[in-house]
C-alpha cells in the first residue's frame, strides 16, 4: 500500500490486497500530525478531498496539513455570487472553470503558481493565527529578509502592502479546516482580468462580497523562490510548530478504493445546482440597447433560476404579447447563457413571427444572454 520514496516521503498506491482505506492507514500510523500532498491538479478532486478528510478521518486527536495546487480555475466562497465576482464570459472563452468551495470567504484565482494549504484539526484546536505563523515562519526561514506578515483579517501581506495569501474556513460537526492560498508565480494578468466582473453594476445582491486587494507574487521579489521549495519549507515548519514527526504522504484523490465516497463528493461539487444554483437570491436590473432602442430588463434570480422577468420595450418596436411570451419563456429557466440560447431557439421555431420580428428577438436574446 505504501511506496516509500525516501525516509521523509511516500506515495500511497492501490494494491490487489488493499483492504484498508486512507483512514485506517492513518489510524495504523499512530501519528498525531500528518502531512499530505495531493497528486491531483483538478479543483473538484481536491475540494472533494477536503470534504472527505473531516468526514472520514478522526481528527479529534490528530491534525493534518494538505498541500495542493490546481490548473487554472476561479474559486468562489460558499455564499458568493459568481456574476458579481468574476468575468464568466471571459472565463468561458479562456476555458477556465468555476468552482464553489464549502468554506466562506472571497473569490480567488488558482493556477500552478499558487499553493493551497489546508489545516485540518478538531474544532477545539482550530487556530488560524497559528497556522499562518507556520507559513510566515517557513518563508522567513527560507529568506530571512522577506517582509511577510499576517493581518487581523488573516491575509498575509508582502512588504506591508501586497496580498500574497487569503484565508477561508469551515467548521463542521466535530472538526474544522482552515485553508489559505499563497501566490508564488501566478499569472497576474489573467488573475486581474478574470476577477473583474463584467456585470456587477447591474446586480443587486446580499451575497458575501470579496474585498479586492493589490497582489504580488513571491517570485517578483525573489526569482529563486519556487513552489516546490516553498512547499517543503511549509511542511517542515508545520512539523516544527506543532511538534509532529510525519513523512509527507502523496495521495491521489481519484482513488475511490482508498477513499470510499470521494468520487460522489467530487461529482456533487461539479453540479450546476451547487456551483451556480447556490447563489443567494439576487436581482438583475440592466439596460440593453438594440437598434438604438433602450430596453430595460429586470430579473429576479433564485437558486440560479429566473424567477421573475420583466422587460420594458417600446410598443412600436415589439408588440407586448410577443414580449410577454418571451419573458414567460424565460421564467423558471436557469440563468445560464447556453440554456437560454437553446430556449430562445425553440421559442423562435415555435412562435410564428415575421422575419423582422425574428431579427429583433434574436438581437434581444443576445442582449439578455450578455448579462449571464
Amino acid at each position, binding site marked *: 500500500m505504501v511506496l516509500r520514496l525516501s525516509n521523509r516521503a511516500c506515495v500511497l498506491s492501490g494494491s490487489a490486497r488493499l483492504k484498508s482505506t486512507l483512514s485506517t492507514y492513518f489510524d495504523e500510523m499512530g501519528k498525531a500530525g500528518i502531512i499530505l500532498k495531493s497528486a491531483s491538479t483538478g479543483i473538484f478532486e481536491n475540494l472533494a478531498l477536503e470534504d472527505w478528510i473531516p468526514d472520514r478521518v478522526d481528527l479529534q486527536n490528530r491534525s493534518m496539513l494538505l498541500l495542493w495546487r490546481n490548473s487554472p480555475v476561479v474559486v468562489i*466562497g*460558499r455564499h458568493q455570487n459568481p456574476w458579481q465576482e468574476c468575468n464568466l464570459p471571459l472565463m468561458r472563452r479562456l476555458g477556465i472553470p468555476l468552482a464553489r468551495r464549502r468554506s466562506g470567504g472571497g473569490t480567488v484565482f488558482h493556477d500552478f503558481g499558487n499553493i493551497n494549504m489546508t489545516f485540518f484539526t478538531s474544532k477545539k484546536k482550530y487556530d488560524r493565527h497559528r497556522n499562518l505563523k507556520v507559513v510566515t515562519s517557513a518563508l522567513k526561514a527560507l529568506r530571512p529578509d522577506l517582509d511577510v506578515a499576517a493581518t487581523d483579517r488573516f491575509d498575509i501581506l508582502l512588504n506591508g502592502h501586497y496580498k500574497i495569501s487569503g484565508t*477561508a474556513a469551515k*467548521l463542521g*460537526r466535530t472538526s474544522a479546516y482552515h485553508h489559505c492560498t499563497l501566490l508564488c508565480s501566478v499569472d497576474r494578468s489573467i488573475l486581474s482580468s478574470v476577477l473583474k466582473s463584467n456585470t456587477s453594476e447591474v446586480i443587486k445582491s446580499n451575497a458575501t462580497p470579496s474585498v479586492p486587494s493589490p497582489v504580488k507574487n513571491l517570485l517578483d521579489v525573489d526569482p529563486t523562490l519556487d513552489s516546490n521549495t516553498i512547499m517543503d519549507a511549509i511542511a517542515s515548519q508545520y512539523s516544527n510548530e506543532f511538534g509532529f514527526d510525519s513523512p509527507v504522504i502523496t495521495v491521489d484523490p481519484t482513488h475511490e478504493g482508498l477513499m470510499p465516497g470521494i468520487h460522489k463528493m467530487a461529482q456533487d461539487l461539479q453540479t450546476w445546482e451547487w456551483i451556480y444554483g447556490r447563489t443567494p437570491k439576487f436581482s438583475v436590473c440592466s439596460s440593453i440597447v438594440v437598434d438604438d432602442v433602450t430596453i430595460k430588463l429586470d430579473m429576479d434570480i433564485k437558486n440560479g433560476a429566473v424567477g421573475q422577468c420583466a422587460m420594458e420595450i417600446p410598443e412600436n418596436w415589439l408588440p407586448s404579447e410577443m414580449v410577454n411570451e418571451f419573458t414567460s419563456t424565460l421564467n423558471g429557466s436557469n440563468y445560464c447563457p447556453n440554456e437560454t440560447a437553446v430556449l430562445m431557439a425553440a421559442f423562435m421555431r415555435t412562435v410564428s413571427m415575421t422575419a423582422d420580428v425574428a431579427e429583433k428577438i434574436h438581437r434581444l436574446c443576445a442582449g439578455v444572454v450578455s448579462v449571464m
Partner: protein
Amino acid sequence: MALCTILRCASGSLTSSLPRLSNRNARTPAGLIARTCYKRGLSTTTRFCAALKFTDKHEWVRVDSGVATVGISNFAQEALGDVVYCGLPEVGTKLAQSDEFGALESVKAASELYSPLMGEVTDVNDALADNPGLVNKSCYKDGWLIKMTVSIPEELDGLMDEVAYERYIKSIED
C-alpha cells in the same frame, strides 16, 4: 376527548406518529413525558413544549403546537462572531436528525448547521437575508433560523434542557 383534541390540533406528521406513541411502553419516563406533553400542550401552552431544548452542536429547539423553531444558542453566536450571511434551506426540505441544513458565515468561518430533529422545513426566517446580525442580537427570538415539523417527538427527549446545556457548556469550557 383528549385524543380527539390531539387529532384535531396536531399537524399531519404528528398524527402519523401518534400510533408509535401509544405502542411504546407508556410506563417509561420518556413515554410519560411525551404523552403528557401532547395531552396538556394543546389547550394551554405548557412549559414542557415551549421550553428550550439544546443539541450538543449548540442549536436550540422550541416546539409550539407541533411546530419546532430552531436557532443557535448564545454560546454559539458569541463563538461565531458577527454573522454576515445565513445560508438556509428551502421550505419543503426534508431533514433527518443531524443532517446539515445550512451554514452561518462570520469572520470566524462558515459554520455548518445541523438539524436537531427529523422533520420538514415549513418556514425560513427571511428577515435574516437583509439583517443576518439578528442571529447575534437576538439568538433566541428574532434571530430564529427555521421552523420545521416534528416527525419523531421522542427525539426531543434526547436533547438537553437548559440546565443540562449550561452544565455541558461549562464542561467544554474547562
